């Protein structure tokens, strides 16, 4: 994957197909002119078109992000409703482009790209498009966990405030009273002097004809009525009674089911299959060769799965057939050494004089850390339903990237993108996996062969073995300490650099820093995985800080404090985590505490893990998480995301390991790609700091800190320093050997 896509990446939500086209269309039929008026003259104007008002005074907020549990279908409408002074009880959410009456793809594309054709470079992904949008809007936006930070702040709040403003203007005209005498509250506008009051709906039609401000006055945080509160999430009732529709649950007339098996060695083509052996199996309709994969269409998924399991498939040999995990690490190390020797590594941070600082002291520390590949393993295995006709294609799937899905499908079907309609569903977990349109491309190619809709379902084995993985990586450090225990030089070399850009950077005051990286070739597909690069760099840098503290013989919390003299926001978060975790208080024998600190996606997080080692078994008792997201728009949802990210990161730290054997992924299902369960889950306490800085993300920032907090706690309890994840591969009963 090219660098540009990673640079332009957004993780937990992206603008979708209909995102750019939904107007303050008060009633159907008058929308074309309105939308045109709205976007005329200034590209920024279209961010003002995210709501509609019904005659029943219901405000419908158009949300251009997929709901995958992060609560965006609730938080974004809250932001709009608050600025509008709407009654949240009369606000509903519609995911774009749910109502085609308000969606117009061509217009949207025209807006996004300023009427230009989609550049070839950007085909197949929304990421580049997003970069274009942010450029056109003159925003300084990169990075993930973006729905609140970008759509919420720039679209929802502005749209709500602008709508409020034109509704007021319309009411003032209708009642012939001064606008400044009007009061707005709970979706009603009132003029007390003349005893007049009316719902938004009474003024909506005329308001829709008024030109809206691109730059309305937004509320100060002390004026918030809805933002900063935690109303029940809109999507939850359907998720407790079984009615929520995920991609997996799509049902269409005459639909049949497909199972698939792709080449275990990534990229290998189909060489031969014994189709005759299965074509007469009950319920089997068709066998489709997708070159690198074979699919079977049958009356039911189980029949299709049995047939594909019974099918002997031979894939072509490839140069990667012999590649094992150790080969990949060997190559990494070789490439790192070569780059160093030849002086052609990529420079990330270079300041001061690192080499000079090393010559001034003999007190240096070196360490090398490793992390494995990781799969996403969302609870809902990848799936997609497709119906392909000569004049168009419809896709049903849970997607983090519907426009990218449409684009990729259009390309393989050789169709205009406007002809591909994506019906986005609830996502049974995303975590970055549902950006990749691979399953939609397969479903479309399979459905193209028949005249009925086909639901393609990946087995869990396929889901684990055909993922786009968080990469395995190596990070090497060398640092120098002065006699007072201050770090004077920091040299860090690792592999690859994706997002977020600041992942390997440290908040600590170290005058001389050289942070650099190298690329290495592998055939393993890469993908965005919750918190992306931060998922490993926090483990690298925060483990190494702990090792430095140990060498300096300073408490690891105090050691970090000493290096945060120029980072007051970080210091505050760290202090809060330490305070709430009773840092420094005695623990029983074989218990330990570990601390970590990392910023990602605009949110600073510190965590303290409290663990116990019983024989060779580890019990994680408690995790204290302090976070400064600037402002938490839905504090309960923010807490839920912190908890979620910690469990996700803890699962990976303890168990997560995808290893390559004979060119393919060795693991296949939850028995060998283990997940954390309830009885292993720690008590998690989250504390939010409101700093009124620009809002940070929620979905990802708690994941990075847990691995180093955990391994630092293991060191504290046992003296065992874990430099390679996952923890399960280490014998924690080796205490006596380590400590002597």
């Amino acid at each position, binding site marked *: 994957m090219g660098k540009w896509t990673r640079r332009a990446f957004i993780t937990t939500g992206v603008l979708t197909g209909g995102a750019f086209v939904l107007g303050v269309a008060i009633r159907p039929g008058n929308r074309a002119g309105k939308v045109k008026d709205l976007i005329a003259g200034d590209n920024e104007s279209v961010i003002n078109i995210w709501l509609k008002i019904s005659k029943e005074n219901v405000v419908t907020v158009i949300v251009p992000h997929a709901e995958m549990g992060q609560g965006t279908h609730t938080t974004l409408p809250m932001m709009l409703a608050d600025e509008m002074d709407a009654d949240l009880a009369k606000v509903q959410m519609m995911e774009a482009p749910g109502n085609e009456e308000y969606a117009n793809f061509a217009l949207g594309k025209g807006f996004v790209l300023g009427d230009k054709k989609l550049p070839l470079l950007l085909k197949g992904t929304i990421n580049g498009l997003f970069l274009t949008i942010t450029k056109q809007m003159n925003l300084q936006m990169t990075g993930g966990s973006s729905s609140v930070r970008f759509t919420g702040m720039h679209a929802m709040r502005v749209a709500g405030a602008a709508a409020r403003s034109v509704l007021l203007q319309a009411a003032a005209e209708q009642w012939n009273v001064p606008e400044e005498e009007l009061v707005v509250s709970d979706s009603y506008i009132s003029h007390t002097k003349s005893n007049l009051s009316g719902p938004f709906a009474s003024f909506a039609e005329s308001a829709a004809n008024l030109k809206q401000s691109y730059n309305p006055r937004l509320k100060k945080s002390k004026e918030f009525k809805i933002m900063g509160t935690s109303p029940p999430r809109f999507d939850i009732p359907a998720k407790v009674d079984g009615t929520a529709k995920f991609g997996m649950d799509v049902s269409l007339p005459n639909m049949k089911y497909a199972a698939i098996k792709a080449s275990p060695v990534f990229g290998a083509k189909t060489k031969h299959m014994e189709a005759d052996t299965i074509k007469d199996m009950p319920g089997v309709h068709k066998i489709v060769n997708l070159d690198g994969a074979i699919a079977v269409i049958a009356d039911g998924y189980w029949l299709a799965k049995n047939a594909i399991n019974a099918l002997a498939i031979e894939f072509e040999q490839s140069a990667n057939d012999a590649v094992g995990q150790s080969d990949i690490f060997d190559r990494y190390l070789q490439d790192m050494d070569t780059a160093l020797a030849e002086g052609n590594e990529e420079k990330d941070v270079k300041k001061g004089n690192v080499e000079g600082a090393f010559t001034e002291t003999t007190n240096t520390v070196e360490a090398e850390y490793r992390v494995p590949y990781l799969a996403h393993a969302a*609870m809902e295995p990848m799936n997609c339903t497709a119906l392909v006709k000569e004049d168009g294609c419809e896709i049903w799937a849970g997607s983090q990237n519907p426009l990218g899905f449409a684009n990729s499908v259009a390309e393989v079907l050789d169709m205009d993108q406007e002809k591909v309609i994506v019906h986005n569903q609830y996502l049974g977990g995303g975590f970055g996996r549902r950006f990749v349109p691979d399953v939609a491309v397969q479903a479309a190619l399979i459905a193209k062969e028949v005249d009925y809709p086909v639901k393609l379902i990946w087995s869990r084995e396929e889901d684990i073995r055909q993922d786009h993985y968080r990469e395995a990586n190596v990070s090497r450090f060398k640092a120098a300490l002065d006699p007072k225990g201050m770090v004077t030089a920091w040299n860090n070399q690792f592999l690859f650099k994706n997002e977020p850009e600041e992942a390997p950077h440290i908040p600590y005051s170290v005058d001389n820093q050289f942070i650099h990286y190298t690329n290495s070739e592998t055939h393993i597909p890469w993908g965005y995985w919750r918190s992306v690069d931060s998922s490993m760099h926090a483990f690298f840098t925060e483990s190494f800080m702990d090792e430095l503290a140990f060498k300096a013989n300073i408490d690891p919390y105090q050691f970090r404090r000493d290096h945060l003299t120029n980072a007051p926001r970080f210091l505050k978060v760290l202090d809060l985590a330490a305070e709430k975790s009773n840092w420094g208080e005695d623990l029983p024998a074989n218990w330990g505490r570990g601390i970590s600190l990392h910023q990602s996606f605009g949110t600073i997080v510190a965590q303290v893990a409290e663990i116990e080692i019983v024989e060779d078994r580890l019990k994680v008792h408690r995790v204290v998480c302090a976070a400064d997201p600037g402002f938490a728009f839905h504090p309960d949802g923010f807490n839920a995301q912190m908890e979620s990210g910690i469990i996700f990161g803890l699962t990976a730290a303890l168990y997560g390991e995808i290893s390559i054997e004979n060119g393919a992924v060795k693991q296949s299902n*939850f028995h060998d790609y283990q997940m*954390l369960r309830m009885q292993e889950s720690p008590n998690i306490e989250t504390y939010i700091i409101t700093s009124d800085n620009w809002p940070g993300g929620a979905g990802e920032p708690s994941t990075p800190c847990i691995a180093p907090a955990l391994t630092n706690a293991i060191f504290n309890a046992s003296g065992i320093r874990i430099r390679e994840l996952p923890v399960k591969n280490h014998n924690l009963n080796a205490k006596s050997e380590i400590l002597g």
Partner: protein
Amino acid sequence: MIISINNETHEVDVDSATPLLWVIREKIGLTGTKFGCGIGQCGACTVQLDGKPIRSCLTPVQQAVGKEITTIEGIAPNETELHVIQQAWIEEQVPQCGYCQSGQILSAHALLTKNTYPTDEDIDQAMSGNICRCGTYSRIKSGIKLAAEKLRNSSTTKILNNGEMD
């Protein structure tokens, strides 16, 4: 083959070895029960057979003949009211992505049918077969405790299958 789901009988024409999961989802059209792993590891497919939680992805439909199958669509007392466990799930704002929650609720339901005073250990044990990738475990636990309290305080609340427990 005739099976009974949520007190309704259905005649289904499938191979008797077909896992119950796919019959419920594809033949009956009740999609609240989810496919997660296919090997009984994750619990997303949990339904109850005569009140006992089972993995429908591994249970041949034949084994359900003559027994009562309960799915997420069948635990509410009526069409306008949710089961107390479902209510507790809303009060505690348990689900995130929500995909595993039908299975979680069916496992919790089986626990609370037997035991309205569950300890943390009881809950851990009853729920250990259900994976949640969003990590909602602490809220599931709170939800179970809240539901248990509601059940204890409400003598009129019936739990389905209560009379059918062994």
